[in-house]
């Protein structure tokens, strides 16, 4: 079941992100962050950060604690407003002028560091809530699942291996299962860009492998930013790596190059 769903040669229609209207990607870059700075009470969490993500790229962001990884995601998703700088999604959307729901609606999905699912809802309901589509009050009030949507839900359920648990309360799931459910919810949103914060935390090796498979299969159609501490996981993703340090980009390159870099070693091992 699991292998079949994750085969690269099979592309499910729902895994092709919907077209975002007016999103101009002809320059090949989906995310621009330029000169972004954020200060928390004198502490520069993000300092003159420049970050670009290509369309369809899978990018890992690593860095020691307090390097600004989560804050960077907060800025992209509208949770934190930077003091200076600009942040654009494609050529059209100025993310700094939008709030969280708007940003989510234009196709940026986020998985939190600590898995947050709706604990009092069943697994099925969690996915249903996350499903792409109009999310105004009235349309939510009258919403009914059609067959197509139900199929899509079942497929995702299978993909995250929670078919058996579909009517269990999400609060009763194990930590790893919650991580998967959250990834499933992310997929239900069908976003163009995914921000995944520490997906491997609390996962077994097997689960990690599956996550790697999933993420790499999503790349291409989706642009993905993965923040991770687990170096093995990052290595397995085999993508470009950005190292953050003290709120700015220390270096970018392949995992091998990064690991050989003296500055990075110094940052991680301490002076």
């Amino acid at each position, binding site marked *: 079941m699991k292998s079949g769903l994750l085969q690269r040669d099979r592309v499910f229609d729902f895994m092709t992100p919907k077209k975002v209207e007016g999103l101009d990607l002809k320059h090949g870059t989906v995310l621009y962050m330029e000169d972004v700075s954020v200060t928390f009470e004198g502490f520069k969490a993000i300092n003159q950060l420049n970050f670009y993500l290509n369309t369809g790229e899978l990018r890992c962001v690593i860095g020691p604690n307090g390097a600004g990884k989560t804050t960077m995601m907060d800025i992209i998703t509208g949770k934190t407003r930077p003091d200076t700088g600009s942040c654009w999604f494609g050529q059209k959307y100025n993310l700094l002028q939008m709030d969280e729901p708007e940003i989510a609606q234009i196709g940026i999905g986020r998985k939190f560091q600590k898995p*947050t699912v*709706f*604990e009092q809802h069943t697994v099925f*309901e969690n996915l249903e*809530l996350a499903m792409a589509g109009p*999310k105004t009050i009235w349309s*939510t009030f*009258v919403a009914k699942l059609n067959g197509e949507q139900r199929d899509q839900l079942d497929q995702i359920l299978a993909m995250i291996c929670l078919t058996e648990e579909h009517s269990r309360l999400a609060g009763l799931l194990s930590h790893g299962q919650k991580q998967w459910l959250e990834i499933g*919810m992310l997929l239900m949103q069908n976003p163009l860009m995914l921000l995944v914060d520490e997906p491997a935390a609390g996962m077994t090796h097997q689960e990690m492998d599956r996550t790697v498979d999933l993420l790499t299969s999503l790349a291409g159609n989706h642009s993905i930013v993965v923040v991770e501490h687990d170096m093995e996981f990052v290595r397995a993703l085999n993508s470009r790596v950005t190292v953050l340090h003290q709120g700015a980009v220390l270096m970018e390159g392949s995992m091998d190059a990064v690991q050989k870099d003296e500055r990075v070693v110094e940052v991680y091992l301490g002076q």
Partner: protein
Amino acid sequence: MGLLRMLKNDKGGQIFLGVLVATLIAVPILHALPTDHPLHLSTYMVTLLGKYLTYALLAVAVDLVWGYLGILSLGHAAFFALGGYAMGMYLMRQIGERGVYGDPVLPDFMVFLNWTELPWFWHGFDMFWFAILMAMCLPGLLALVFGWLAFRSRVTGVYLSIITQALTYALMLAFFRNEMGFGGNNGLTDFKDILGFSLQDDGVRVGLFIASGLMLGLGYLACRVIIQSRLGRVAVAIRDAEDRTRFIGYRVERVKLAIFTFSAMLAGIAGALYVPQVGIINPSEFQPLNSIEVVVWVAMGGRATLYGAVIGAIGVNYAKTWFTGAFPDAWLFALGALFVFVTLFLPRGIAGLFKHSLLRKRAKV
């Protein structure tokens, strides 16, 4: 059909609606029995039950926002009282020349204050439909404006509770002022009739009781419809993980605002039904204690069940009636102890006990 499907998973709701319908049928019959019959129900009891039903509707409104949306509103007494005032204004206008001062238009207290003209906001309240509309719209409007301000700036949790309480308190102070034009301290009272029927008439009393019961049933079903919809699931999602809900693209503020406003309107209707039965509305209805008491009814009955709110409202108020008759001084002790007891030992309320035993029975089978 849709109704049955909706109640399929709501065992408590089925029982509640069954009991409600039975009561609505039984009470008028028992009341119609001759007075010396052992099962005869006095008019006083009918009115008391009617009052309980309006409280129950208020509790359902509070449970909708607290149980399902996570907003602990300490302002629902204000919505209830506003609805009550709207109805009170209608009843005041119906008195006409039968007031102490015999002014055909001005209510007594205005004559007493030497006012010569009806204030603009009293116009229209001589029409029943307008008063009912206002009983819904005024609380709704207040909730809309207040909610828009509060939810937009993401005031949540205890902060929200405290400022809803401050709002209610401010309204209480305002209504105590004679200049406001709502009778000040004494409020509105000495009502004579409603829709042309005397309020003292037994039939009208029974009618008001039935109206309260019907509105409670309708209110319950309306809340059920919301909760069963995806909107209801979004509400629970907001309650449990507000940020997450935002990040999957829901406009949390608007969902809160819509449900909060709806709940305020329900509370307003409850207030409008309450006033003709108790015969008075005054600013003490805005007291902070009243709002919190409603919350305790809900906590007692069990939050996030709706029917639990009904159980709590009727149970606590029955106890109140009994206590204030038997041991008037002990009531506040009992109520205070109830607050502590429920929060410490009965976090899921009576309905929680009920559900628990139900689950255990199922597990045995």
